[in-house]
């Protein structure tokens, strides 16, 4: 039995439904208008069936479906000021998403060019997605190799600018301090840092990898941070366990003390809630997440450019190939599949100019910045980048 007041409720409901339908139509109409002025963002992405390159949760990179690229040659976005610009799309190493977002925001504010939110994930996973055809203009990677053909394939533009240096640390949280085994290890590490004695470091690393605590090391295939975690252990084994690179890595694997995820950033939450006690991650990320961290010796923490040769004697081999140790340098590049290329180069120039501001995140900024360059004819280095090199703002730092 519907009473009188419910009758008016029905008309209200009908009215609301009508309004909602109207909103849907307006949104669809707006959609048509915006899409027709930026058809390119739709046409570049082209999925097929091989899905396996991304490990872990879906959202660390948007493109879990991979496939061949059909690079769009649509000319819509060539600098016509009267047409609404399509936003600049960016992929970033997840540990540096905050920094990338800040840089993009500053750039957008300064130039008025719209930027899309950053898509973040392990750098190698990002590269896989871009190579598979995900639309992208800017790629900020935690490792140089992710910007090279080794990971970006034919979409690598063969140049990248290294604009910040970082180091591996072992992060820990308040929950870690409540764990007695872990807090003992923290004391051991602090002792070793002061004395820098081989025996002290050995004590620390031996107990760390004994299996009595859980250590987060992200997937090496998807995330360079995870790969670097293993390299740190190899370097430590070489230095403190009489030349045995596997001295600490093996026991850790055997005892099952390592916990993995698709990206180091994804392990920050379990660290904070106490499911893991330590996490191999970049120092800047630990600072950004307000985590405590253990500093390691520079021979081990991949921080120093002059130790590049030393680092290169350690390597990690997996399905993606063999990766050798190298100093950690945050790199930026513009993939060949970029659509808003002019705007992307403008952003690169912005980053170069404002790199110094990143030291507030705990990063070390090299001066001049480093240009890794393997561009071979008929390709050329973008003129703006060439100009920076000539001016001395960038210095040639070898091949990509």
């Amino acid at each position, binding site marked *: 039995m519907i009473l009188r007041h419910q009758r008016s409720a029905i008309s209200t409901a009908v009215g609301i439904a009508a309004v*909602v339908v109207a909103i849907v139509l307006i949104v669809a109409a707006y959609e048509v208008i915006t899409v027709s002025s930026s058809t390119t963002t739709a046409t570049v992405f082209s999925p097929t069936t091989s899905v396996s390159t991304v490990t872990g949760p879906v959202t660390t990179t948007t493109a*879990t479906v991979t496939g061949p690229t059909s690079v769009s040659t649509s000319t819509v976005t060539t600098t016509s000021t009267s047409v609404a610009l399509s936003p600049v799309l960016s992929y970033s190493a997840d540990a540096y998403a905050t920094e990338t*977002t800040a840089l993009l925001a500053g750039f957008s504010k300064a130039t008025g060019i*719209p930027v*899309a939110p950053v898509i973040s*994930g392990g750098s190698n996973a990002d590269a896989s997605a871009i190579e598979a055809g995900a639309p992208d203009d800017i790629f900020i990677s935690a490792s140089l190799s992710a910007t090279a053909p080794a990971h970006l394939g034919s979409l690598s533009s063969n140049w990248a600018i290294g604009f910040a240096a970082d180091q591996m640390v072992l992060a820990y949280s308040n929950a870690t301090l409540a764990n007695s085994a872990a807090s003992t290890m923290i004391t051991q590490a602090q002792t070793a840092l002061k004395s820098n004695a081989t025996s002290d470091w050995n004590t620390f690393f031996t107990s760390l990898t004994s299996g009595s605590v859980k250590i987060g090391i992200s997937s090496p295939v998807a995330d360079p941070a995870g790969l670097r975690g293993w390299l740190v252990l190899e370097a430590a084994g070489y230095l403190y366990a009489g030349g045995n690179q596997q001295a600490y890595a093996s026991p850790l694997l055997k005892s099952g003390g390592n916990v993995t995820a698709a*990206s180091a950033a994804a392990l920050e939450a379990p660290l904070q809630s106490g499911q893991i006690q330590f996490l191999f991650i970049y120092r800047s990320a630990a600072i950004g997440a307000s985590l405590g961290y253990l500093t390691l010796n520079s021979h081990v923490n991949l921080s120093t450019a002059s130790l590049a040769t030393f680092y290169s004697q350690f390597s990690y081999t997996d399905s993606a190939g063999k990766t050798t140790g190298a100093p950690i340098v945050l790199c930026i590049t513009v993939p060949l599949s970029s659509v808003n290329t002019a705007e992307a180069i403008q952003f690169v120039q912005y980053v170069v100019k404002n790199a110094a501001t990143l030291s507030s995140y705990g990063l070390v900024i090299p001066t001049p910045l480093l240009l890794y360059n393997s561009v071979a004819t008929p390709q050329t280095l973008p003129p703006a980048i060439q100009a920076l090199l000539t001016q001395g703002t960038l210095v040639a730092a070898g091949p990509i």
Partner: protein
Amino acid sequence: MNWLRAISIAALVLLLIPIVVLLYYGLGPFRNPAGYSVAVFRSIELSLFSSAVAVAVDILLFTPLAYYLARGKDRLAESLVDIPISVPHPIIGVALLILDSPITPSGKFLLGLHINFYNTILGLVTALVIMSAPIYVKAMQPYFESKDAAAEDYAMGLGAGRLRTLYSVVLPDSFDGLTSASLISMSRALSEFGSISIIAFYVLQYPFYGVSSASVTIFELYNGAMAGGLYAAVTASAAMILVALPIALAGHFVRRRGRRT
């Protein structure tokens, strides 16, 4: 001792413990401003808006199906309706991606019509419709079945076809059923994650430029892709629960009122 009641209440409490824990920590010890930042509220807005639109579409497109299943005996159709919600949700996201991809014939056709699902509100709503329509049908079908068919038989005898009967005779009398089913499917749409994290990770349309749905945002806060960390994720989760609760409870009140009359 009413054992049935005791066991039932215990089961209910078990079900609600995670929610209560989250509310306690999110509003209390773990409260973190990043969890109720503008970004989080925009996400909640987007979730509410897109879910409401999805439910409106559900009502318009799927009410006839629910009626058809109620009055017809099409067992096959009944089982088919359940398929989208029986598969892992990311599959639906992938399906929409392929459907609208420039390398498939369907995609070429759709893109030619400027119908783009990827990171658009259209794609978001489409995924939500696919994931909430089966729930809507599952709620409306028993409601229609429970209605006395006398009025419908009479109307058809007078010459009204089934569809006409649905619109002129059944629906004007189905306010509480419609409301209840809408609220349930809206709750379903609000909680969706897997499919929309693929097809519409964020949307780039005014007024939701660069905004992700609430479920995606909370996941991003958790996995560190968005600054905030664990505590922000917990706080945002608590905020989302506070938003979802009234909708779930409204459904309860409508059902109660329906039963009383």
